[in-house]
């Protein structure tokens, strides 16, 4: 005798009966259940809009430009998904992205082979992530402040060590360079690989489940014996390492590194990509593919505005308004979608 624990607020949708109308309904229902729905729609919208508005949009050269532009936003976004799911935030990822090629450069100038210099630089980035995480969990300082402080500190270290002078990146020749940044599709392929790896980590492994549990209900996670602090520290290490690696690849692609920019302009698009994609700022929920779509949205937007020649003075206003529109659409559609999800 089965005991039904039913509740009035939780009546499940019965499978739709056969028929054209209900198939459409089923499709709508399935679509609504996808957390990434809004970002898919707004991204499709901007792609269609710009491809109609400017014929240069669909050229290979332009697609490569966009792909190269979004790789770093996407990778930082993937890392931020993990951090946001935990209910934390990492504002230092941009500074890590900018300073890791400098670490590599310093290791290389001190005589290390280039491959090892990359490994050592990424290890430094992992160390920075560990510091972020340890201060956050052991000294109970908000990760927003910790990582903001680390962001400025890294900027300072780079300025001091470089004497504020731009340098050329090593590793510009041979197969090595093609794999590590120079190849037209190199950075976006690395980003895609990291997307799959981080997605699998979050959705298919025990560790990923513990990330969700830690962010969703810290007390319950800790009660069940999950080492919530360790989980958090590891996520800070992952985002820093990933941001550092993509930073090196981008620097090799560009060919030179400039000490003069702060990391916030780099990290914030990553956070926007994650949140646009459907990751909750409050923790507990996150989607890696959503962050990838969010990065594509931001990249297409930036590129499209350039192509149609939006006046530079209007550029940021237009970008700001578009992000706001996308986010409002996200929230409103989310309210509708929740009804379908129940």
């Amino acid at each position, binding site marked *: *005798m089965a*005991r039904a624990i039913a*509740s009035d607020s939780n009546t499940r949708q019965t499978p739709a009966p056969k028929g054209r109308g209900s198939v459409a309904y089923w499709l709508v229902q399935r679509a609504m259940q996808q957390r990434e729905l809004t970002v898919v729609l707004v991204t499709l919208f901007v792609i269609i809009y710009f491809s109609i508005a400017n014929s240069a949009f669909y050229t290979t050269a332009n697609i490569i430009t966009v792909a190269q532009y979004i790789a770093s936003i996407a990778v930082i976004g993937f890392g931020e998904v993990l951090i946001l799911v935990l209910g934390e935030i990492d504002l230092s990822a941009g500074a890590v992205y900018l300073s890791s090629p400098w670490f590599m450069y310093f290791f290389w100038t001190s005589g290390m082979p280039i491959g090892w210099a990359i490994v050592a630089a990424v290890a430094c980035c992992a160390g920075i992530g560990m510091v972020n995480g340890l201060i956050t969990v052991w000294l109970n300082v908000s990760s927003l402040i910790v990582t903001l402080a680390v962001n400025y500190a890294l900027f300072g270290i780079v300025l001091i060590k470089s004497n504020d002078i731009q340098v050329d990146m090593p590793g510009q020749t041979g197969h090595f360079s093609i794999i590590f940044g120079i190849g037209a599709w190199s950075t976006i392929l690395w980003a895609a690989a990291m997307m799959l790896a981080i997605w699998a980590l979050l959705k298919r492994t*025990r560790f990923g*489940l513990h990330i*969700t549990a830690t962010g*969703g209900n810290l007390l319950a996670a800790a009660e069940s014996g*999950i080492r919530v602090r360790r989980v958090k520290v590891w996520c800070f290490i992952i985002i820093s390492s990933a941001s550092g690696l993509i930073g090196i690849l981008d620097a090799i692609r560009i060919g030179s590194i400039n000490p003069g920019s702060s990391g916030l302009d780099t990290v914030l698009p990553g956070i926007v990509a994650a949140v646009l994609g459907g990751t909750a700022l409050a923790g507990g929920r996150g989607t890696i593919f959503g962050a990838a779509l969010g990065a594509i949205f931001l990249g297409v937007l930036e590129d499209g505005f350039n192509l149609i020649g939006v006046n530079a003075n209007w550029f940021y206003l237009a970008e700001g308004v578009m992000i706001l529109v996308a986010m409002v659409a996200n929230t409103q559609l989310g309210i509708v979608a929740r009804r379908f999800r129940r």
Partner: protein
Amino acid sequence: MTEAESPLVEASPTRDATLAASDVVLETVGVTKSYGAVVVLRGIDMQLRRGEVLGLVGDNGAGKSTLVKILCGFQPPDTGKIYVEGKEVSFRSVADARRFGIETVYQDLALVPQLTVAQNLFLNRELTLFGGVGWLSAGKMRQLAKNYLEDIKVEIPDIDAEAESLSGGQRQAIAVARATRQNAKILLLDEPLAAMGARESALIVDLVKDLSRNLGVSMIVIDHNYTHLFELCDRLNVIQQGRIAFDQQVQDTSVEELTKFMVSQYRRELAAGQKLLEQ
């Protein structure tokens, strides 16, 4: 008086044998606890039998939650002994108590709202493939979760539903199911029927009775609501001034008798307080 003292003296050497015979799974002897100058527990002697549901009653500050915190390993007693299945134990942590099969179930704290029923049931006990990598064996966990819920007759419409979308009763049932699936033999339930409609609470009552009778799970229930306690429990203990002041099988007592007992005790305390003030 030698007659009064003798049972106490004789009790300790024969304790193990007596306990095994009477099927007591959890016993406390003379458990005390003070916080600074405030004495909360003055000597709790309590027994819980296999498959028994024991209700703990007491005013706020009487020491119910202190006792539960001691039993679940959250804090140690100052003095006194705790026996699990006749063996003396001392818990250093909640995890320690859990190893002895004692687990607290909280209605709202237990589940992760964003995880599915199956994921919640296996929280931190996940099954994995290829060992060290930690790749989840999702299908197997799903199937086992389904089977287990069927075994204990809890029907959840969708095993893949997120806990957030479940009702309070369903969440409570999942929390209880997780504890028993992980071999908890003694459950501590804190207001298990709080904020539940009549129909939902009836289902939890059924689950509690089912687990205690058919699986031999013992439970200690804390609740302020006498009606709930009489529905759920086999026996009631009242804690007053840090001691067990009332111990009755539910069929031998009634809500009226319990209320009368609590009120008379309250009057006595009030009179004592007034006397103190007058002095």
